[in-house]
């Protein structure tokens, strides 16, 4: 049995398999097995497998699904795939969508069946044109073969799948903002509770999961819980699509046991730093994950271990920061992104992040003022978890918080340099 279930069918040039090829490689076997099971048994299987959400938060998938009402008179329900991959530094779902679209479709049908949702949407970011094209082709094949539509494979289960191509804005990746967006509105997050599993798309019970999370589901059904847990090096089940970008020798995506140490991903798979560059720090799972430094190189990259080290596994795609990079400049880049992508709904996020960006821009330009560090620290506190409407602002200040702690001298120098030059 495979140790790289999610990527084993993906060819080096990413040309996707046709339906026939996918079936010959064992594709849609998981669906056949699933359709013979009681839907709630699939959810129970995911709980036992300890599959955790791969979109960044790491919420247990089986637990999430268990909140969906399952009585027969619930009416319409929805399964939604979050393919709005827009976290800076993240390019893992793109591989799955472009390289193996049938895996995505099979995952949607099995997941829809498990929560008894008859309609599914793949919410795809607008820039992933190739993924859109390949998904459309594969969906047409699947429909032709009776895998989508009425009475899937004679099971009595109806499932319709639609591709929704979005038109930008990072906030669409936030679960409830995605629902607003899918309803044709501005992508403004919603208050929780009620949770989407009870009141979601068009007010109906809905489950939203990341691409990688869902793609695991048919494999778990097919190969079982023990196999899935044994793939891992940690309590979390399965593999993880890790990635690396920055000044490393072999940037890319690598499917490895979840819990692989940071050092191993960096040195063996990403090929270490390029000549002339030294490792300085890393954002372990995209722009919104707090920094780790060389003190953390032996950390296991699973949700709990990275959490205990004061960061988050996030999407698992490492943004590697080299010794020639200014931390103040880096933070300015990050906070520019977060300030621009704030949806503007709540004041701390809308106004606070722009203020943070302005201060950092001034520091980067050599015009830092005494007291700037304290103002940044105040924003780290005031935009933290629970202080804003959704997770956007807390995500934005996580890297800033760690930068101020691990690389404080660089911020101090940015201010001192200005004072020395006679600035006010």
């Amino acid at each position: 049995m495979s140790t790289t279930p999610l990527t084993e069918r993906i060819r080096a040039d990413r040309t996707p398999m046709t339906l026939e090829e996918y079936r010959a490689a064992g594709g849609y076997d998981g669906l056949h097995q699933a359709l013979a099971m009681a839907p709630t048994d699939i959810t129970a299987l995911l709980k036992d497998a300890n599959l955790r959400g791969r979109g960044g938060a790491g919420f247990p998938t089986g637990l999430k699904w268990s909140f969906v009402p399952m009585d027969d008179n619930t009416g319409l329900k929805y399964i939604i795939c979050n393919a709005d991959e827009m976290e800076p530094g993240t390019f893992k779902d793109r591989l799955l969508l472009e390289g193996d679209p049938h895996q995505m479709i099979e995952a949607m049908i099995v997941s829809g069946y498990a929560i008894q949702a008859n309609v599914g949407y793949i919410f795809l970011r607008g820039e992933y044109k190739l993924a859109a094209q390949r998904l459309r082709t594969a969906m047409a094949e699947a429909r032709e073969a009776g895998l989508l539509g009425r009475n899937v494979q004679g099971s009595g289960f109806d499932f319709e799948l639609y591709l929704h191509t979005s038109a930008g804005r990072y906030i669409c990746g936030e679960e409830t903002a995605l629902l607003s967006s899918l309803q044709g509105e501005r992508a403004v997050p919603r208050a929780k509770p009620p949770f989407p599993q009870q009141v979601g798309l068009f007010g109906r019970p809905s489950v939203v999961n990341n691409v990688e999370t869902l793609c695991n589901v048919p494999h778990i059904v097919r190969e079982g819980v023990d196999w899935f847990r044994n793939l891992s090096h940690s309590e979390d089940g399965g593999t993880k699509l890790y990635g690396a970008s920055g000044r490393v020798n072999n940037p890319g995506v690598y499917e490895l046991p979840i819990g692989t140490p940071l050092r191993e991903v960096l040195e063996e798979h990403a090929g270490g730093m390029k000549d002339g560059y030294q490792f300085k720090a890393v954002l372990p799972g995209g722009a919104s994950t707090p920094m780790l430094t060389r003190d953390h190189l032996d950390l296991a990259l699973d949700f709990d271990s990275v959490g205990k080290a004061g960061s988050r596994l996030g999407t698992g795609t490492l943004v590697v920061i080299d010794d020639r990079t200014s931390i103040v400049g880096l933070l300015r880049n990050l906070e520019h992104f977060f300030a621009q992508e704030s949806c503007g709904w709540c004041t701390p996020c809308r106004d606070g992040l722009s203020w943070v960006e302005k201060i950092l821009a001034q520091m980067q330009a050599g015009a830092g003022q005494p007291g700037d560090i304290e103002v940044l620290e105040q924003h780290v506190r005031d935009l933290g978890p629970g202080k804003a409407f959704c997770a956007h602002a807390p995500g934005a200040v996580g890297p800033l918080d760690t930068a101020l702690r691990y690389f404080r001298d660089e911020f101090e120098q940015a201010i001192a340099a200005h004072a020395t030059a006679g600035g006010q």
Partner: protein
Amino acid sequence: MTAERIQAFVLSDEEKADIDAEMSHYEDPGAASVEALMAVQQRRGWVSDEALHAVAAYSGIPAAQLEGVATFYNLVFRQPVGRHVIFVCDSVSCWLCGYDDLVQSLCAKLDIDFGQTTADGRFTLLPSVCLGNCDHAPALMIDDDHHGPVQADELDRVLEGYS
């Protein structure tokens, strides 16, 4: 916006068919607002006031809702663009790998800044958040095509393909 100008704008049959198809995907047809605007933009390059009102009249989605989404989503263009649109990724991985040099060369070569169109109408230059091409940084996207890594001295070769 005069009534005459709005009435003078006619959606093509293809545009109408696309809008109909998208609206049929949702229990509330109004959910297709973004896709309806994109059906027009795909063929005309951008969404004019006249086009927006035509989509509203045809789809029954209020013009205010369409304007609300049009001004929220950055891939909906409410101003004319050049024949080709260049999106330069300005997110962290590309910034770490030479974004500044790339943009400097691009702006100098095209003699425009972000948000502008070249005098000959060939290119519009726009910044983009992470394009998901971080292992090929610095990256950019021209129309539907992703390119990366693009070094400053390779720009001529890359731009050549877009006349």
